[in-house]
């Protein structure tokens, strides 16, 4: 079981074309204990994907360190399954081959791969679409293939970037339940990005509310609610009210600082 440690992470994107640097993440420290379900909640562009990419090993932090299971992250690996914001399926492979891509890399035979993929295809409700190509799927279906593909890795850490954003309400609820069940069964650590307060409260054991650009941890909230979560309960709504207030304050602060980009740019002068 793996814990995730982020220590004083900053991330600056160098923008050579516009001769301006962008401070995307500013001094974020988060530690996620094994078997936690952390939801990252924040507005669009606040750096949620960037943070996830650094845990996955696709991006290097400009400052600070990320460790997973005690080992510093230096590059992507199959110990951290990622569900991307865009599904990123191989367009030349049918659904089942996409789900079983990891096994293809491990040199499994076709029949074995096919059999192994089926369990996960069923899990995300795509039975009957095994031989469809990504171009023949809807956005939500592609997203579910991406989820099945990450689950098949059976990873210690699952990183999910708004995986349910493209789903209808019913499918979303089913998938949320399914995800919680998988998490409880496999005892993995999940970092889940969302900008829906309800979703964060339904899923997480912890919610980190991020500020708008640059991303900072505004507040880390421990959720001690019984499962399955009751979205009409008093406790649930107390948490929701609290988080919505945080977001509202954040929005007001943003509006006061008239030119957010130039503010960010001047901050980097100090950071760099």
């Amino acid at each position: 079981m793996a814990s995730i440690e982020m220590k004083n992470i900053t991330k600056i994107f160098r923008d050579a074309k516009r001769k301006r640097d962008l401070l995307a993440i500013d001094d974020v420290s988060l530690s996620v204990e094994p078997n936690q379900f952390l939801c990252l909640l924040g507005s669009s562009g606040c750096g949620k994907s960037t943070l996830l990419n650094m845990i996955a090993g696709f991006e290097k932090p400009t400052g600070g360190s990320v460790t997973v299971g005690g080992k510093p992250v230096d590059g992507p690996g199959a110990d951290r399954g990622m569900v991307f914001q865009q599904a990123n399926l191989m367009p030349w492979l049918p659904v089942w081959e996409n789900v079983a891509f990891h096994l293809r890399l491990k040199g499994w035979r076709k029949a074995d791969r096919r059999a192994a993929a089926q369990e996960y295809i069923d899990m995300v409700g795509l039975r009957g679409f095994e031989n469809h190509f990504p171009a023949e799927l809807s956005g939500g279906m592609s997203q579910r293939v991406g989820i099945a593909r990450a689950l098949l890795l059976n990873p210690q850490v699952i990183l999910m970037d708004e995986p349910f954003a493209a789903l209808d309400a019913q499918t979303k609820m089913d998938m949320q339940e399914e995800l919680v069940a998988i998490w409880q069964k496999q005892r993995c650590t999940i970092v889940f990005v969302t900008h829906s307060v309800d979703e964060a409260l339904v899923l997480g054991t912890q919610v980190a509310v991020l500020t708008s650009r640059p991303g900072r941890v505004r507040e880390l909230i421990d959720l001690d609610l019984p499962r399955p979560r009751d979205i009409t309960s008093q406790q649930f709504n107390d948490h929701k009210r609290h988080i919505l207030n945080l977001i509202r304050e954040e929005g007001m602060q943003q509006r006061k600082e008239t030119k957010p980009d130039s503010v960010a740019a001047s901050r980097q002068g100090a950071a760099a």
Partner: protein
Amino acid sequence: MTAIGKIWERFAWERAVVPLVILVAWEAVSRSGLLPAALLPPPTVVLHAWGDWVFGFDETAQANSGRWFADALSSAMRVAAGYAIAAASGILLGIAIGWWRWVERTVEPTIQMLRPVPPVSWIPVAIIWFGIANKPAIFLVFLGAFFPILMNTIHGVKTADRNLIRAAAMMGATEQQLLRHVVFPAALPSIFAGLRIGIGAAWMLTVTAEMVAVKSGLGYVLWDSYYFLRYDLVLAAMASIGLLGYATDGLIKLLMSVALHWQHGSTLQSREG
């Protein structure tokens, strides 16, 4: 409607219109006496000479009578050999250049300098190196097909979706696996574009080489017939080259539709019947 009728309707009709119109007009012009018949033989005469060249029934084609298959085969073999070498080396080198910066830095300038040199201008060198036979022709075919295949492969690799590479890396792919399971298939549509341009160049250069440096093949017959003022055979040779080029391109298109079947329904091209 009968099956044959249907096939006629789907395939033959539209494709045959333009050639038919050209043939009829040509026959008319040529029979009108505007030009001496020897300089612009009508299609019927060309067809006659061509028929004899293929089947050898009345020696109209003289020494070439009945030798068409041998001629076509020797041209086709040269195309096949040069093209196969060009495809294999162009794709491999293209992937290497597109993927590794250091390969690009070391070999790209040389390649970009060689590329604008017309393959035809290599003929003297090719004859000195390889003599008069198959080899200079194969070398020219290689030169003609190599660059389009290479350039398109490089382009295909460089425009591969970074996110797919990330996804594969997330699933534990090694660099070699990335190249084989992600970069190559991602570049395949572009590679096929290069292969199709390359096959045209390949035929062009076999014929050129045969006119100068080889004593067999369709290009040789074409040039030889020109010396003997046999314009009917010249035209028959041109038509043969056109047909064979068309057929090989069709073959590559077929291969492409099999290899890229996953594109069906996602591209404009897939609307084609």
